[in-house]
């Protein structure tokens, strides 16, 4: 059946059709939907793992135990999973093991623009890159075959546009692939120096064999047209090239690592000039240059930001791009009723230093709250608070708060907390516990007591956990009570030793109990205290703020900051 589908659905479908039985992931835009879709197939045992390292280890274990497994993550997730990655490259697989990694050129929803193709090269793991949904499905299914044939984990590299664009796919039946027997094989799976040294040769042989075979794989092909310029490209960029430069000859690379070098050399011979058009770094270009192929690339094509048809036309043909209208920006905002807003309004008032972290609560860094000083990577808030205390002294810790989301705390905050206790620090940690992974679209995690299938499970108890780790001061407070939040933060900041504050209130988008709206009455002195909350429902008008009843969810935070009692339930006003 032909249907429109996003690339991420197609990856899930391709894995399903290839007989996958295990799927693990930690969410991350633009990779999340792969696992959400896979979890809908009853033949697959899927999980949200606490982080990408665990997810990959689950995938490796499943593979060693004979199953076909897929692990999905965003580009920065691969940094977290890099440790097992570099060694599973040595062990190879039993059941096919596919790692779907989604890059985010243009930084639509990430903290950086890293190019994951380098991981394929440095870990010596093959990487396929599809250009649309049909290829995403086909390449994923093919990846399982190649993984088993070459005894290697293998990457499917997605980018935001391929992951989140819809195009037609034709679905096929699932091929049942029996789980292979578990076989003990220390030489292959116990990577201590003696064995690893030997396996290193297997890796080299396999990559050479794969590279030779790449030259004749159907997913690498030339399309001859005008022979003045031959373009080498891969992934979503191929589609841009076909639209921007329809008359050019094209070599489409499906295996971005290892490259089909001989086939590209052949292509180069048949065109006058060779140009690599690739998004982000000159990854293909540099490899061709090492092979002595004369090629243009990043001297013509930008290495920053997403490419597009227009940018390619501009770079290659010198065509102008229409200039956008300069007008007011519309940045993302904390939703009306978001519990993070109340925490940040208190922090803002107390003028604390805040080591921030990644999630919806990162938006606390924006005006008017301006409450977050740093954001680096998931879990960094706690480690950085420790480092800042070491740099500035113990008293500094009493003015500094590590603010971290619940999903992020489970992902990689716990080890930081242990570090703080172990090294006798004063670190102050605040978990903004909205009982979900908000940023990526509300996935459950170990702190929610629900699995990917929405089945009940043990709910991680942060208080018990912290106490077991030796945290001296542990306290939970309801997020929406501003006075209580302020009192608790002040108390904890004054204390010696590590403190953990858990500020609890479910995300406003999952908390469906609609409360009565508020409105502003004539007692308003136009002091703008409510406006400073940065709530999308409170609009600053010259003659005084006004609450948009279509947006207000009745969270009551503005009521608490109004000194004049001017904000009341709509009915009473």
């Amino acid at each position, binding site marked *: 059946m032909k249907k429109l589908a996003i690339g991420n659905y197609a990856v899930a479908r391709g894995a399903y059709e290839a007989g996958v039985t295990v799927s693990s992931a930690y969410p991350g835009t*633009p990779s999340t939907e792969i696992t959400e879709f896979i979890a809908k197939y009853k033949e697959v045992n899927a999980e949200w793992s606490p982080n990408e390292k665990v997810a990959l280890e689950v995938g490796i274990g499943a593979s060693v135990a004979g199953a076909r497994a897929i692990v999905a993550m965003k580009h920065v997730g691969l940094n977290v999973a890099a440790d097992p990655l570099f060694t599973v490259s040595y062990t190879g697989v039993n059941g096919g093991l596919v790692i779907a990694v989604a890059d985010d050129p243009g930084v639509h*929803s990430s903290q950086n623009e890293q190019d994951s193709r380098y991981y394929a090269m440095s870990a010596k793991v093959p990487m396929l890159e599809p250009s649309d949904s049909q290829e995403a499905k086909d390449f994923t299914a093919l990846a399982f075959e190649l993984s088993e044939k070459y005894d290697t984990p293998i990457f499917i590299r997605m980018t935001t546009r391929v992951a989140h664009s*819809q195009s037609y796919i034709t679905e096929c039946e699932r091929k049942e692939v029996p789980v292979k027997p578990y076989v003990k094989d220390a030489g292959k799976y116990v990577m201590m120096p003696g064995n690893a040294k030997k396996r290193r040769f297997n890796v080299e042989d396999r990559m050479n064999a794969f590279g030779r075979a790449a030259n004749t794989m159907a997913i690498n092909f030339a399309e001859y047209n005008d022979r003045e310029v031959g373009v080498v490209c891969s992934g979503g960029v191929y*589609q841009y090239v076909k639209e921007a430069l329809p008359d050019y000859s094209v070599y489409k690379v499906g295996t971005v690592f290892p490259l089909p070098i001989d086939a590209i050399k052949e292509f180069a011979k048949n065109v006058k000039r060779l140009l690599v058009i690739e998004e982000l770094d000159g990854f293909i270009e540099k490899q061709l240059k090492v092979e002595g192929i004369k090629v243009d690339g990043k001297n013509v094509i930008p290495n920053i930001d997403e490419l597009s048809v227009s940018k390619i036309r501009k770079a290659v043909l010198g065509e102008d791009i*229409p200039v956008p209208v300069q007008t007011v920006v519309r940045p993302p*905002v904390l939703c009306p009723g978001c519990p993070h807003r109340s925490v940040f309004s208190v922090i803002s008032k107390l003028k604390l230093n805040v080591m921030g972290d990644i999630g919806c609560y990162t938006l606390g860094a924006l005006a008017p709250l301006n409450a977050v000083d740093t954001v680096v990577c998931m879990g960094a808030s706690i480690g950085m608070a420790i480092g800042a205390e070491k740099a500035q002294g113990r008293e500094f810790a009493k003015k500094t708060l590590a603010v971290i989301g619940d999903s992020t705390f489970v992902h990689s905050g716990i080890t930081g907390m242990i570090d703080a206790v172990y090294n006798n620090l004063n670190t102050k940690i605040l978990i903004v516990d909205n009982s979900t992974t908000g*940023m990526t679209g509300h996935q459950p995690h170990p702190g929610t007591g629900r699995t990917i299938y929405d089945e009940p499970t043990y709910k991680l108890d942060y208080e018990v956990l912290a106490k077991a780790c030796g945290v001296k001061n542990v306290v939970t407070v309801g997020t929406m009570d501003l006075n209580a939040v302020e009192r608790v933060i002040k108390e904890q900041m004054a204390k010696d030793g590590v403190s953990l504050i858990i500020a609890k209130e479910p995300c406003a988008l999952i908390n469906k109990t609609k409360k009565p709206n508020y409105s502003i009455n004539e007692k308003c002195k136009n002091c703008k205290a409510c406006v400073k909350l940065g709530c999308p429902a409170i*609009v*600053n008008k010259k003659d005084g703020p006004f609450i948009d009843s279509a947006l207000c969810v009745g969270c009551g935070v503005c009521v608490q900051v109004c000194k004049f009692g001017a904000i009341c339930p709509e009915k009473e006003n």
Partner: protein
Amino acid sequence: MNILIAGVGGQGTLLASRVLGNYAGLMGYDCKLSEVHGMAQRGGSVITYVKFGEKIHSPVIADGDSDVLLAFEELEALRWSHNVKKGGKLLMNTQKIMPLPVIIGASEYPENIIDTLKKGQFDFYGIDALGIAKACGNEKALNTVMIGYFAKVVGIDRDILKKALEMSVPAKFAEVNIKAFEAGYNA
């Protein structure tokens, strides 16, 4: 045909693009859609690209290559207006949603957007889609009002588009959506 749909996170632009995608399927066209997920959905500026025709390569519309801009909000109409082809069409829901810099008083919401857009090199069409959706009984159906209006202004086969709409919404919302579609068409 290249259709750029612009709006604010939460306005239901994704549904509009899916309806157009299903329409393309019914017509037997090749079709690609490009969506933005993640950070941009938190009340930020959101755009979706819809392209259909004989053969579609890039899922993203080249700058300045949109036949139609379907704008769900005035400021977003202005922001993306440079993307409309000369002689193209800009359809706008006349609704203002204040962005954060305006809400907190750091910036002003641009004035006279309609006048500015009327001077553009494209045909401008304004509609109070939110008001019409409310009158139909569900303000969320603003996206289907826009789709109905689109069908009329662009001259798309009404019945086929209506069928595409039915394919795109859950059965229990079909009735209000069809009503909204008709209201948009007849606006």
